[in-house]
């Protein structure tokens, strides 16, 4: 599904954020990405989303070198990936319903079909009853769940999450991770960046450890 071949990423020509990353993630796998702050977790995810291009090596997703995608193809590539952001990136002037419907609107999904899928996604994260609320009327954990609903409403085959449990209490964090496990169970490939070691070691999935932009450990699920 995802292949990194000797990938390096420099910012501004000198600073090496990622160096010589070589690993692959199989279809249907669930992988945690961990490491200290500044280790390069977000940079790695941004490479997969093609928000950045590697300065060295190749990133292949579903067998294709995504650096070679033409700019006009990038939006169509991104539509196949669900992304959960640490700061959830919700649109504050739209209701929860319309936030979750956004990816479908972009794809031009027919409104009735979209409504069905939005409700299903909101139901999955337990927020169906808040569909008319605005994002600021929700708690941090609820906002994060809206972000997850938006990421999965398209039924992506790849789900990326950058610190999805950033500022949440342990119970909420565990709930959210359980949600990702549910999506993984139905075949979605999931990559989650997190530095909450206590939580992710408990979950027993494969773990990639970064230190200063290098892959220092690749521990298969125990």
């Amino acid at each position, binding site marked *: *599904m995802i292949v990194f071949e000797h990938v390096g990423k420099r910012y501004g020509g000198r600073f090496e954020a990622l160096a010589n990353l070589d690993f692959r993630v199989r279809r249907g796998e669930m992988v945690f990405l961990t490491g200290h702050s500044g280790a390069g977790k977000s940079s790695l995810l941004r490479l997969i*989303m093609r*928000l950045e291009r590697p300065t060295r090596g190749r990133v292949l*997703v*579903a*067998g*294709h070198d995504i650096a*070679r*995608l*033409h700019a*006009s*193809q990038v*939006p*169509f*590539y*991104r*539509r*196949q*990936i669900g*992304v959960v*952001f640490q700061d959830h*990136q*919700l*649109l504050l*002037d739209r209701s929860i319903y319309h936030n979750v419907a*956004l*990816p479908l*609107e*972009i*794809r*031009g*999904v*027919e*409104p009735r079909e979209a409504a069905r899928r939005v409700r299903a996604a909101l139901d999955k994260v337990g927020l169906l009853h808040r569909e008319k609320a605005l994002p600021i009327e929700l708690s941090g954990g609820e906002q994060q769940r809206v972000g997850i609903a*938006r990421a999965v409403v398209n039924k*992506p*085959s*790849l789900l990326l999450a950058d610190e999805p449990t950033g500022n949440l209490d342990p119970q909420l964090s565990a709930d959210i991770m359980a949600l990702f496990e549910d999506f993984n169970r139905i075949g979605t*490939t999931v990559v989650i960046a997190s530095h909450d070691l206590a939580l992710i070691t408990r979950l027993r999935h494969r773990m990639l450890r970064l230190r200063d932009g290098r892959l220092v450990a690749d521990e298969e699920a125990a």
Partner: protein
Amino acid sequence: MSRDAARQPPRGARSQSQGPRASSRMRAWGRHHRAMCLDSARRLLRHPLGSLLTMLAIAIALVLPAALWLALDSARVLDAELEESATLTVYLAHQVEEAQAGRINEAIGAHEGVARTRLITAAEGMAEFQQALGLADALGRLDDNPLPASVVVSPVDPEPEAVRQLAESLDDLAGVDEVRLDLAWLERLRHLAELGSRLALALGVLFGLGVLLVVGNTIRLAVESRRQEIEVVMLIGATHAFVRRPFLYSGAWYGLGGGLLAWGLLGLGNEWLAAPVRALAASYGATFQLPQLGAAGSATLLICSTLLGWLGAWIAVSRHLAEIRPR
């Protein structure tokens, strides 16, 4: 990254979303256009004063070139009428007798390039002259008629150059004293019209650029205020066309609003000037109507203003989208 896509993206990535049924994609596209058209109108109405000011600025930029264009249009109508009545006056020599004048008249009538002739004998000329000037008494006392007989010639081709050539060849005929052609003022009018139309074009271009700037600036601010939204939708796979669409509609609405206001201003201006113009024309014994935009002119104005608004928005958004990169 479904199995199909795995076999053949990046093209697969597109074909998957373009789907097997193009018609459903077209419907989705039409739906988004409709939605954005209404949404951008709603956004404009949410800030009625600001929108109105933008439209007013556009209207003012449009009124001047439009008015000039209208004035030129009426000048063209006038010019055509004048051309129709462009005539030459051939003055015959004093010693030409009346019978001889008739023959010369016929000869001129047979001349190439002459459409019609009308003979004015010396006596008729005098009568016309007296009537026109109301000087019957003063001239009536003259013993001898000082006026020669003349032939008024309507040329086939009223173009100034052709008329001038005709005049030269008529001048060579026996018994002709002088050919007078009053083309100077016609040509002067032409030059003025030419000057005016260049001026209108220059003003049109200049003020058109003004409209682009007004709309562009307004749209730039709108893009800036929705920057976060743009970044988010680009993160989740919106194309540039999708992002641009609501702003293009805003630009088109501004343009249309500005065009309607300009149309209203032109109408008001017409009302305002109509009375004095009518009085002025009457004092020349003429009836002259201020030119009206008419249906075609109104449509042109509105279409142009809408397109200008759309174009201004397009330029502004495109310039901005290149800068916006999702974080």
